[in-house]
């Protein structure tokens, strides 16, 4: 029928196209094209272990706790530990912190970690132990344990040599149990033992065996001896009775031993985490505690929350003050500390902080009967062969390769004193290098990061929501005990917190692109989106309306 023969009755009620609009391939109009282009959320990026934080939060929100827990384990075998002691740079980097408050990632990690303590992971094929491949790990601190875990996962026979009588290294002897209860650590180590890790206690490198001995007996050796020697102050009378080493002091307390020459007025020197731990532990031992630190609160390397807690508990911090001389009595016992007032100069030191300089004639005396030195730790190089020693630490590449055949190293003994999570990350990387060395495994490729910044997000889709708060033991209940300060929160609170996550750079099927596409050029298929480039005009609405910057626009020529 010719169209001009049409009568009124032949027409539709309204002007509607004769043909389906599909014949009009509007995609040819496009100069830009959109693409689902997932990016790196800042939490993952800033995590020293590069945990896939966004993913495990999303899984937690779905209630898939098992999967969420296993997701952490891909990068960090001990979330119950890091959930408690990590300084969580993930939260500092969290985009939500610019919006209202960052996600309480450490609480979610701790929740999953605790969930995992009672969870038996499915055994993988790769875990079948190959008796021909034996690795010795020296030191059972975080990097040693982490390395052990990833080696065990891949069928390597692992023996861990520990000079003390308990496993955990700094986790056991350094960190006070009000931050990391011993049962938690024990459970994690038990899980590792169940996987097949063999511990040999009270065997010390340099005393009971040498590195060369081990290289003969084992196919590879991983050095994870940490940085355990407290640095000297370099001032007169350091040998006085009542002068204690920070880590030694913590170790004695952790072993529940009686501490020699421990008085009622304790002066802690230093501004790092060891200093704060020492101060808070001394407080719990019934002493009055002052911290002496040569710069201001701003420059303190200790974790901020810990500093605040210490102050709340009653620790006094004397800033811009440096020790000059220890004052002792005739019996050689500490009676006080002569100090000098400091000021911050304009000059910046190698740590990027302003250098403190003494103010002339400002010396004064602080009374005290115990001095705890906590100005930093160093590696005991005396027990190591020269060829693997670098400047102040063991010399190794970022995967732990040293200059000695079969010998690998990681954690604080390579980096100098750093954090638990960094040691764990190093242990994992070294494990993969060892696997490469022993079983020709491919070393995991370096991840490339395409960071999502706050400006990349479309914030119209988010509402302000308060961050969950930690349950803390009241100050008056912390006296003279080592009960864990932060207690668990409910499943509901964790689920709520997980729901606050922006999911930066990672699609969470919010359907905005699907809903907003004016050309219906986005299809949903099995929970995924597909762009119909035949019809997409490249308007960019999908990319703009994506709250989390998953979709990017590209020039058509680049396709």
């Amino acid at each position, binding site marked *: 029928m010719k169209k001009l023969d049409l009568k009124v009755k032949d027409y539709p009620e*309204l002007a509607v196209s004769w*043909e389906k609009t599909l014949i009009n391939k509007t995609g040819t109009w496009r100069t830009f094209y959109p693409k689902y282009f997932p990016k790196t959320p800042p939490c993952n990026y800033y995590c020293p272990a590069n945990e896939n934080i966004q993913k495990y939060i999303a899984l937690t929100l779905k209630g898939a706790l098992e999967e969420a827990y296993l997701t952490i384990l891909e990068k960090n075998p001990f979330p119950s530990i890091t959930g408690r002691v990590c300084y969580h740079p993930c939260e500092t980097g969290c985009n939500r912190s610019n919006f209202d408050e960052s996600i309480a990632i450490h609480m979610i990690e701790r929740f999953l970690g605790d969930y995992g303590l009672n969870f038996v992971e499915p055994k993988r094929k790769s875990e079948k132990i190959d008796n021909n491949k034996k690795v010795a790990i020296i030191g059972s601190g975080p990097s040693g344990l982490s390395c052990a875990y990833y080696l065990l996962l891949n069928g390597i026979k692992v023996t861990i040599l520990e000079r003390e009588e308990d496993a955990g290294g700094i986790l056991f002897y350094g960190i006070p149990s009000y931050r990391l209860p011993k049962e938690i650590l024990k459970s994690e180590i038990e899980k590792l033992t169940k996987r097949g890790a063999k511990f040999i206690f009270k065997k010390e490198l340099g005393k009971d065996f040498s590195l060369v001995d081990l290289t003969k007996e084992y196919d590879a050796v991983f050095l994870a001896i940490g940085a355990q020697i407290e640095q000297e102050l370099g001032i007169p009378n350091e040998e006085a009775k009542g002068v204690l080493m920070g880590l030694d002091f913590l170790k004695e307390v952790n072993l529940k031993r009686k501490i020699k020459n421990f008085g009622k007025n304790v002066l802690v020197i230093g501004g790092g985490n060891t200093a704060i731990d020492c101060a808070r532990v001394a407080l719990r031992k019934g002493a009055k505690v002052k911290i002496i630190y040569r710069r201001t609160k701003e420059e303190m390397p200790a974790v901020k929350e810990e500093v605040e807690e210490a102050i709340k508990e009653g620790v006094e911090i004397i800033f811009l003050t440096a020790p000059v001389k220890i004052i002792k009595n005739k019996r050689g016992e500490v009676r006080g500390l002569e100090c000098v007032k400091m000021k911050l100069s304009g000059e910046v030191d190698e740590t990027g902080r302003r250098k403190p300089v003494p103010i002339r004639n400002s010396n004064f005396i602080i009374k005290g009967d115990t001095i705890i030195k906590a100005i930093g730790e160093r590696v005991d190089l005396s027990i190591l062969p020269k060829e693997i020693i670098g400047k102040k630490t063991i010399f190794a590449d970022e995967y732990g390769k040293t200059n000695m055949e079969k010998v690998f190293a990681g954690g604080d003994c390579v980096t100098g004193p750093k954090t638990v999570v960094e040691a764990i990350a190093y242990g994992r990387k070294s494990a993969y290098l060892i696997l490469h060395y022993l079983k020709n495994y491919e070393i995991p490729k370096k991840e490339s990061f395409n960071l999502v910044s706050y400006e990349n997000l479309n914030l119209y889709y988010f509402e302000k929501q308060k961050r969950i708060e930690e349950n803390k033991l009241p100050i008056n209940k912390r006296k003279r005990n080592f009960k864990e300060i932060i207690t668990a929160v409910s499943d509901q609170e964790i689920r709520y917190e997980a729901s606050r996550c922006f999911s930066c750079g990672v699609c969470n099927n919010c359907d905005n692109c699907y809903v907003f596409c004016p050309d219906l050029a986005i299809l949903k298929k099995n929970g995924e989106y597909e762009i119909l480039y035949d019809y997409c005009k490249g308007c960019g609405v999908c990319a703009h309306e994506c709250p989390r910057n998953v979709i990017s626009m590209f020039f058509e020529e680049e396709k």
Partner: protein
Amino acid sequence: MKESLIYGKKKVVTGNHAVSYGVLLSKAEVIAAYPITPQTQIVELLSEFCASGLLKAKFIKVESEHSAMAACVGAAATGCRTFTATSAHGLALMHEMLHWAVGGRLPIVLANVNRAMGPGWSVWTDQNDSLSQRDVGFVQFYCESNQEVLDTTIQAFKIAETCLIPVMLVLDAFVLSHTSEPVDIPYQEDVDKFLPPYKPKYFLDVNDPRAFGGLTSPDHYYEIRYKIEEAHRKALKVSEEVDNEFYQIFGRKYGVVESYQCEDAKLILVTSGTITGTARQVIDEERSKGKRVGLLKIRLFRPSPISQIKEILTKAEKVAVIDRNISFGHSGIFCQEIKSILYNEIRRPMVFGFVIGLGGRDVVPDDIREIIDFTYKADYPEEMVYFRGVRL
């Protein structure tokens, strides 16, 4: 609000809330509206119904009335039962989109609370806002009481969906919109029986994607426009059928026009909106004095109930049309309509036009009496239009 407190009860509600209850009972699926006095209460209550979940509709907040109608057009195009409400300047701002609703054959229901146009700024009633939209192609109902408002709202959806033409129901500002009267709220199941879910003939369908309202050449435009005229003619019939069907279920009917005491009337008043109620009372009084006067209430303005009007008015000697509106430089708009309907009749009455009550000035029984007396005495309308109550 508890459901048991609503359905099947006699409630004292304002005209505005009568609309809201009508929309609730009609189970509208999308509501897009912008607040404007004196309409706001309609959508205010609807938004509460939506928020409480009583009405499972999507309530779209928009930035203007133009957008409100645009959103309704979009929603209705997907096959949803769609509602909006406005007044005066809001309706004027919608103007372009009203054409879209008609041309797109979208059965949107719009409640317009008659408010005078500014400037001088006014919130009070007259009919110029809705009558300015006479030619866009909306069906227009003018209501007299709050019960009629509620019932017409429900009927409007049925008429609109049967004929694929949008419907505007009109109520007077304040005199109805803010005045409470007892109103029977029907049972939901009765309304469901009367008004089943909307089954669209055309809708945006991703599985059969087509362009709607695209460029239409002179070869086709006229035919499609003619179909709108057909729809209006159908709507006149359907309005009567729907009214009868409504009566079967709910026991109330209004007719497209209402003839009151017209059978032997020498003089018939023509009114719309709330003036009708006042006039009805005066007619009763005049009748008791022996005057043969009657009243024709125009409820359906578009499509024009031409034959019904002719049948009633050609029997009279004189007709007095009371307009709460004005087409400047001519006369009242209802008056023009009545004249044009009667013009070709061989036997036709003399038509007197009266403009009254602009900008919400009260129209009281004395005004109606004066109009009756004047028309009774006059032999011929010397003036095209008489301005009642203006202080000259």
